[in-house]
């Protein structure tokens, strides 16, 4: 009976948090907290793995907590098991990383208590089996992560980030609350088992879908509800950023899948898929474009989270579209792609954020314009970060490519769909997906190239040191996993097929592990296949072959000299290409449309000693047209209402008087 154990382990996490409140002043506390979190996460990971790989039957448990007449329901099935794996894998690695990284934390008292609580909250969301417990854990997760975002509360930027984050989280929770109110009905059948049985009218179901999109989308970072994400994720300490970006957004995706695919049951209308698909495509491209405009490494990564969430939702939208037409085989492919990408993104996004954390501790800088040349002092970190960058750019033979490849394959099945709109949407989504992949590659050339390559742009970057053992261990664990998932995708797909079957009326992808050379054959042989393992082998072979031959039979001598640079060897690192200049062509091409980016050069007249200035003005369309008006309206209204604080007693009396007369008139007319 694994469920009680899972729950009690989560409780232990909470207990650790309480312990940390008292002990956080002691230096050893950090080691203890992260150590225990690591152990617990590993255990949870193991249990979830066993449950998923044995394709065990769902287990449930009810505790006399929460709503008195309902109790707290918990359930462990394939879907929650898969997401438990994602969460606890990320949690374990983040804890491992933090064993080293946490030593540099200036304010441990503000991190240690909330970190385990955050982990526990995410685990509980995945185990909850009734609306109350689900939202309870969901909001608890938001709250603890908010506390972590506020850990360095003295920077005003962080305070703003935390504020926006919690308000958006509250918005999301309220939306989910309404959705559950709709699903549970007036007499409150809040447990999921009851909700599954409810038959809803199409209109109400659609309303519920939109509310769920709002609720989970605001947590996952769907455009236009993403505004908080790029502010909040970077504000937290890096291992927490890794968790928030790599894992918490996945919990949000879990919420969407659980409610829409599991609780709502069969998608009622075909346009559901279209809606989700369109949202996903827009999110993917906008996210990566935002990212390209960023020079702050962590914010860049956060925007890439938005992009990848978009990719995941493209997969989910396709799955909805297929299911609404009873094309379960195709839906299985789309779902597999989405879930696979969930796993992949959690891997490489955590890796990248932790790499940034290592850079942050080594240099104290997050701004790429002040970094550079870090590959020389920190080669290992650079190698790991490079792996992550290649993976997120969907380059074979790493894992990012596999899930995007699967998504493409799913899109290639959409011509079978009867609806015209979907026929048009699907290739458009494909184009958006391709565009975002290509832009992501560009963005990570910039991220890695400007940060790690070239020459240091600031003294801090010049004096950097390689990071500690724990952090490197964490980084390379993830890098290895990226490579494994990329080269042996068949095994992963078989692993998560029970979850797919659960959501898809039993339909799954054919088992992959019996294919020759572990080739990936999602649909049918001779339709489309991919074999990461062979590609890797070929590349390794040919590369090594070339190296051996050349070094053996041609020259292998090397001379060092200043860079040639077409005969202008310049001493100053300032003359290097910066992040801003790297992004300039893409800014000219895309940014001028999306962000109304305007470049302005102020060149002093000849003989004038002043330096020339170059500035770029950009507007965030989502904020300017979506959020700013609302805030302004609230402020204006509150100004209006505020006058009511300053009336004379007479006026207050006349308020009461007016109310009385009104009500009297009311009952006179009521008859």
């Amino acid at each position: 009976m694994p469920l009680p154990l899972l729950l009690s382990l989560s409780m232990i996490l909470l207990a650790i948090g309480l312990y940390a409140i008292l002990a956080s002043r002691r230096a050893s506390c950090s080691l203890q907290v992260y150590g225990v979190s690591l152990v617990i996460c590993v255990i949870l990971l193991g249990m979830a793995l066993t449950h998923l790989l044995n394709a065990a039957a769902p287990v449930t448990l009810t505790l006399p907590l929460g709503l008195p007449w309902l109790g707290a329901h918990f359930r462990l099935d394939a879907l929650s098991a898969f997401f438990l794996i994602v969460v606890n894998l990320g949690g374990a690695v983040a804890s491992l990383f933090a064993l080293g990284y946490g030593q540099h934390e200036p304010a441990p008292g503000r991190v240690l208590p909330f970190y385990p609580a955050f982990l526990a909250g995410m685990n509980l969301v995945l185990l909850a089996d009734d609306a109350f417990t689900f939202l309870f854990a969901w909001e608890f997760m938001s709250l603890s992560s908010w506390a972590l975002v506020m850990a360095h509360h003295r920077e005003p930027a962080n305070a703003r980030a935390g504020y926006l984050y919690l308000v958006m989280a509250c918005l999301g929770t309220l939306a989910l609350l309404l959705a559950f109110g709709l699903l549970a009905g007036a007499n409150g059948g809040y447990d999921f088992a009851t909700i599954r049985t409810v038959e809803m009218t199409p209109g109400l179901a659609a309303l519920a879908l939109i509310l769920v999109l709002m609720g989970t989308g605001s947590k996952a970072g769907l455009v236009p509800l993403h505004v908080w994400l790029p502010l909040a994720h970077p504000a937290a300490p890096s291992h927490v950023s890794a968790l928030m970006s790599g894992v918490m957004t996945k919990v949000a995706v879990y919420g969407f899948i659980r409610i829409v695919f599991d609780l709502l049951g069969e998608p009622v209308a075909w346009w559901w898929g279209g809606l989700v698909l369109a949202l996903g495509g827009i999110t993917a491209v906008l996210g990566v474009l935002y990212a390209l405009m960023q020079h702050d490494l962590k914010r860049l990564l956060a925007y890439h989270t938005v992009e990848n969430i978009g990719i995941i939702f493209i997969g989910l939208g396709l799955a909805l579209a297929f299911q609404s037409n009873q094309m379960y085989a195709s839906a299985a492919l789309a779902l597999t792609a989405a879930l696979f990408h969930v796993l992949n993104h959690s891997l490489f996004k955590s890796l990248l954020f932790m790499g940034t954390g290592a850079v942050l501790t080594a240099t104290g800088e997050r701004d790429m314009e002040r970094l550079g040349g870090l590959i020389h002092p920190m080669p290992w970190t650079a190698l790991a970060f490079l792996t992550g960058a290649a993976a997120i750019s969907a380059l074979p033979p790493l894992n990012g490519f596999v899930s995007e490849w699967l998504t493409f394959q799913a899109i290639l099945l959409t011509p079978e769909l009867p609806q015209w709109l979907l026929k048009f949407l699907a290739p458009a989504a494909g184009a958006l997906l391709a565009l975002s992949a290509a832009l992501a590659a560009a963005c990570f050339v910039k991220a890695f190239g400007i940060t790690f390559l070239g020459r240091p742009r600031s003294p801090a970057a010049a004096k950097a040191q390689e990071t500690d053992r724990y952090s490197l261990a964490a980084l390379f664990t993830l890098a290895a996993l990226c490579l494994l998932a990329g080269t042996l995708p068949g095994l992963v797909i078989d692993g998560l097929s029970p979850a797919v079957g659960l959501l898809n009326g039993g339909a799954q992808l054919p088992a992959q592990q019996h294919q020759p050379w572990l080739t990936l054959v999602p649909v049918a042989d001779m339709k489309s296949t991919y074999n990461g393992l062979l590609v890797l082998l070929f590349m390794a072979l040919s590369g090594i072959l070339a190296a051996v031959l050349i070094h053996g039979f041609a020259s292998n001598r090397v001379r060092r000299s200043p860079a040639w640079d077409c005969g202008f060897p310049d001493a100053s690192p300032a003359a290097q290409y910066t992040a801003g200049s790297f992004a300039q062509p893409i800014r000219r091409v895309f940014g001028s449309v999306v962000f109304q980016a305007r470049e302005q050069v102020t060149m002093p007249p000849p003989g004038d000693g002043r330096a020339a200035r170059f500035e770029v003005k950009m507007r965030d369309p989502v904020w300017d047209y979506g959020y700013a008006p609302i805030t302004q309206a609230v402020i204006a209204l509150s100004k209006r209402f505020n006058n009511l604080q300053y009336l004379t007693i007479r006026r207050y009396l006349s308020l009461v008087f007016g109310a009385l007369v009104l009500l009297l008139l009311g009952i006179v007319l009521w008859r």
Partner: protein
Amino acid sequence: MALITDYLVQGGQMLLILLLAPLLTGWIRTLKAQLLRRRGPSPLQPYRDLLKLLRKDVVLADSASWLFRVAPYLIFAAIWVAAALVPTFASGLPFNWAADLIAIVALLGTARFFLALAGLDTGTSFGGIGASREMMIASLAEPAMLMIVFTLSLLAGTTELSAVARFMLNADVGLRVSLALALLALVMVAIAENARVPVDNPATHLELTMVHEAMVLEYSGRHLALIELAASLKLLLYLSLLGCIFAPWGMTTAGEDLTAYLTGVAAYLAKLGLGGFLLALFETRIAKMRVFRVDQFLGMALMLGLLGALLLFVSRSL
């Protein structure tokens, strides 16, 4: 027994393209020169250059890192593998199914990724220019390419190149609008990807509009040799891609007898020669365009690809 021959053929193809690639480049250069009323170098000149470069020792910039030294091998390997996966004279080779067209595009992406990083590694401004422009071009070229892939795979019902080739060879495809669109788009992408006029000029140096050459500016010796080889491999790849998709005639399928193979190779060589000639002709007829016109050029390619895909998506339902 058949298996062994298959593997032999596969290996033969890999070697063949490796040997053919510099010749193709040389052939195009010669043609261009002669079209410009110059004598021009012999088509074999590239081989000589490569050998010379291989024998020279490498001059590394002080600021270069290990990545700078690893990159050439990675790039070469990626492009070679990609090229080896494209059916040239025979389809259905044992490893064709290891990666489909999408994967091939992605492999080229890998090569480009590391090439751009190498450009940034030395911390020179030229490398930066090259890298950033290369990525900008790619960010448009790749989606266009994938749209083309969509069009083909919708027609052939597969993204498997050899299968596509066989489909084009056997089935009565007839003339299709979307195919024409795809062809046009593919040509444009090929020109952009291989840094040819009008997008980039392979022959220039010290010009602020150059892209590919700017990235490899710091390379020398064997590294430069590998990168040059990889570049010509890439050109070969695109030409054979065009060949095997839009002109699969004369291509044999695996397991045929020797004569069939020979005819296949002959046909392949013919295609390459023709392709090279057309390319040279094209390049001599037009002038290079400004960098910030490239996005319109490639945007057009992307639109064509998307249009082709859409037309098929719709026509499926008709």
